[in-house]
């Protein structure tokens, strides 16, 4: 798989996650975050199991163990994020979340893999873009909320690095399926502790079931398979640099379908637009295969010279 193919995979995952808001509005209010996680992940896991049942006998102890680690990390990410977002303003939370573009390269240095020059330049641009979009104010970072968001960021960075390692060794498809099954199981346990028997008390209307199904397919089943394949062929730093485009996609979607994002005036401003442009530039600098582009230009010049 070529680098641009891989970038397309990761971008589609980010797009799915960023556009989840559009589908979430179809869910009932009494469905808690744990309930949401339990239903989404279980449904996605069951769907994938039904679809790829012939591959399931290949699941071994290693895949089970790796999937459990990934599921645990992802659940921690979601828990930390939930707590952090409740305690922080959206701009502060968004800024802290974007720190994974710094943490992942640091983790990679521990694994003796240094970021390339274009990745470093890209990171600087993206951070500048995030700062411009969200602004800086020391008051916007109360300790508890900041710690939760940093925990979210560290766990997400760990997830990116670890899943990249696991995907080299295991079948990405099975890793995605078993991981979703574990996440569903963890979600079910937590949901049952939080509100016992709620799963049976919910009103399963056609609209709710449709939203549930679509969310399970796109934001879970589809997104996790694509993410695992993207991790298998990609570099963790490139992955987070593409994920850094999420605020840009959200801004674009809020302009396209304002009613699903609480009105365009909530998200759009001139500084947000400038910040988004800088983030896009940073991501392009980091992710385009400049060496190949240079070689193409050189070979084209040479062939023109011959003519």
């Amino acid at each position: 798989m070529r680098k641009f193919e891989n970038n397309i995979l990761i971008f589609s995952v980010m797009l799915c996650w960023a556009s989840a808001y559009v589908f979430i509005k179809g869910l009932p209010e009494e469905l808690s975050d744990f309930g949401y996680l339990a239903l989404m992940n279980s449904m996605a896991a069951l769907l994938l199991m039904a679809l790829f049942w012939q591959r399931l006998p290949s699941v071994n102890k290693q895949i089970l163990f790796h999937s459990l680690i990934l599921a645990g990390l992802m659940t921690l990410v979601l828990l930390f994020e939930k707590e952090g977002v409740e305690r922080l303003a959206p701009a502060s939370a968004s800024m802290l979340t974007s720190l994974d573009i710094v943490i992942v390269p640091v983790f990679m240095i521990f694994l003796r893999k240094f970021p390339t020059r274009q990745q470093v330049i890209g990171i600087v641009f993206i951070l500048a873009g995030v700062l411009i979009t969200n602004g800086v104010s020391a008051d916007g970072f109360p300790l508890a909320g900041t710690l939760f968001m940093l925990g979210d960021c560290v766990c997400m960075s760990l997830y990116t690095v670890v899943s990249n390692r696991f995907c080299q060794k295991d079948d990405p498809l099975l890793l995605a399926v078993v991981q979703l099954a574990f996440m569903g199981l963890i979600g079910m346990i937590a949901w049952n502790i939080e509100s016992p028997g709620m799963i049976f008390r919910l009103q399963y209307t056609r609209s709710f079931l449709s939203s549930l199904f679509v969310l399970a397919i796109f934001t879970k089943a589809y997104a996790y398979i694509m993410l695992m394949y993207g991790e298998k062929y990609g570099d963790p730093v490139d992955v987070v640099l593409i994920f850094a485009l999420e605020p840009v996609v959200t801004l674009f979607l809020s302009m396209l379908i304002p009613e699903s994002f609480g009105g365009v005036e909530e998200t759009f401003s001139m500084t947000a637009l400038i910040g988004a442009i800088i983030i896009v530039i940073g991501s392009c600098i980091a992710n385009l295969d400049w060496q190949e582009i240079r070689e193409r230009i050189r070979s084209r010049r040479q062939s023109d010279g011959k003519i």
Partner: protein
Amino acid sequence: MERFKLGKFRQFLITFLSFVILGACFKVMVLVEGLTEVRPVNAIPVPAGLFFGTIAGLACALGNLFSDVFGTLTASSVLGFIGNFIAAYMPYKLWHLYSKESPNIHGFRKLLLYLWVTFVSAAAVSWMIATGIWLVFHSWVPNLALIIFMNDFVFPILFGLPVFIVLTSDSVRIECAKRPKDLLPIGAKGRKMMTVIYAVLLTVLLVLTHLGGEGYVTIATVLSIPAVVLTVCLML
């Protein structure tokens, strides 16, 4: 690594069921107020067509008809049947016209080819359904042409393309349908030229259908005649 091979029945079943299930889900959901026609299910025909060829065309056409039976079955469902067959079969025919390799986007040119075949088939579907409803059933629906075109162009790129990449990657290497046989004795050069004319013609028809209005009926009808001829020539 060995290629991932699916029997013809499974090819049909997978495409058909995916189309019906996803189509049914999005029929119930209103994603955007006033626009119930946002259909991510339209991501399926292009990659399915490139992988399974004629079988995918039939599966998508029948899948769409099946969804219509449970909600909106009208005389215009015939146009939907033909349109969804074109949505899967046209990319398959066009891909093999431009490339000797089995479908993949391992190079930048192949990516452009994917975009090109998606554009032409989206324009063809939009013309077949929206212009068809307008001219044959004398019912002009505002924005219908644009909505169909956007559904058939954007979703195969946003969701169809990543699936296509994974299934053509070294880990899966799905076995694609064989090169289609050309029933009409037209050379590759002639077909390529016809495709460009077809794309221009469909774009004009798309704009006319979007604008609607009595004044454009005659010109749209006249332009639809060569569009029908070119569709048949390119499909056979």
